[in-house]
């Protein structure tokens, strides 16, 4: 286990959490993540109960079930949150070297723009496979 200290670009928002020594990273190419984030959104798996956040956080409710948070001072992406369980999926970029994590899964892989792609042989889930994983029987999963 490791203790992580991270921050946004300007340093106004500080984040601490505990995580595995080599935590899992996950990337999402859905249209909402890309609109929000310029390109793919990458999160790092941390212990949810350990997350502590300080600073000027602004939260935007992007759908009935999800929220996106950013620093009000510098606009840095902070996390993708789920309303139903209060979980916060922290942006990997808040931490040096993405907390030492490794990309293990890419969601909405078939919605990645044609102009770029991640390297590697990690698991790639299509839109249908992503829905099946997170919202079986439902429509939009973002």
């Amino acid at each position, binding site marked *: 286990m490791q203790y992580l200290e991270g921050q946004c670009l300007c340093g106004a928002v500080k984040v601490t959490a505990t995580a595995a020594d080599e935590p899992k990273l996950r990337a999402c190419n859905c249209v909402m993540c890309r609109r929000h984030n310029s*390109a793919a959104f990458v999160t790092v798996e941390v212990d949810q109960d350990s997350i502590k956040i300080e600073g000027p956080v602004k939260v935007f409710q992007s759908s009935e079930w999800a929220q*996106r948070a950013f620093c009000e001072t510098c606009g840095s992406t902070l996390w993708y949150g789920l309303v139903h369980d209060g979980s916060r999926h922290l942006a*990997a970029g808040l931490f040096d070297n993405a907390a030492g994590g490794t990309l293990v899964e890419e969601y909405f892989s078939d919605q990645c*723009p044609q102009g*770029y792609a991640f*390297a590697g042989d990690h698991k790639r889930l299509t839109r249908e496979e992503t829905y099946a994983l997170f919202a079986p029987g439902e429509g939009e999963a973002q």
Partner: protein
Amino acid sequence: MSEEIKGHCLCGAVKITVTGPLGDISACHCDLCTRWSGSVQMGIEVPQKRVEITGPVKTHRSSPLGERAWCDTCGSAVWFRYPEGPDAGYFELAPGLFDNAGGAKLVRIVYADRHPDGYALAGDVQRVSKAEYEAKHPFVEEKTNAVS
């Protein structure tokens, strides 16, 4: 007549119209871009005079020379630019503003050697190291020191 390319942020409050064509995509793995984007920052270079933006855009001077902008309502990335200096006059627009990244292609990665160990971008694209980039852009040294 030039093509008009339209885009918007996640919530739709910020709208953008570019008189085409869009440029190529560049990606950056520097510390500031990584913190800001949460992953890897990408931008499509377009002369500012061909861009019209409406809505609640908020900006932050992330270094003495660089400025970043986002939607104040939903937090979507909108642009990076150098307001002054040799690279002034251009926006690096967030590809996510446009459907299918505006059809643009990644052609260049700067700070390519600074990507996190755990992920990297694929492809036969130009890869410029931190040392190479800063040798040609000495003014960014201050920028990259700001976070460390």
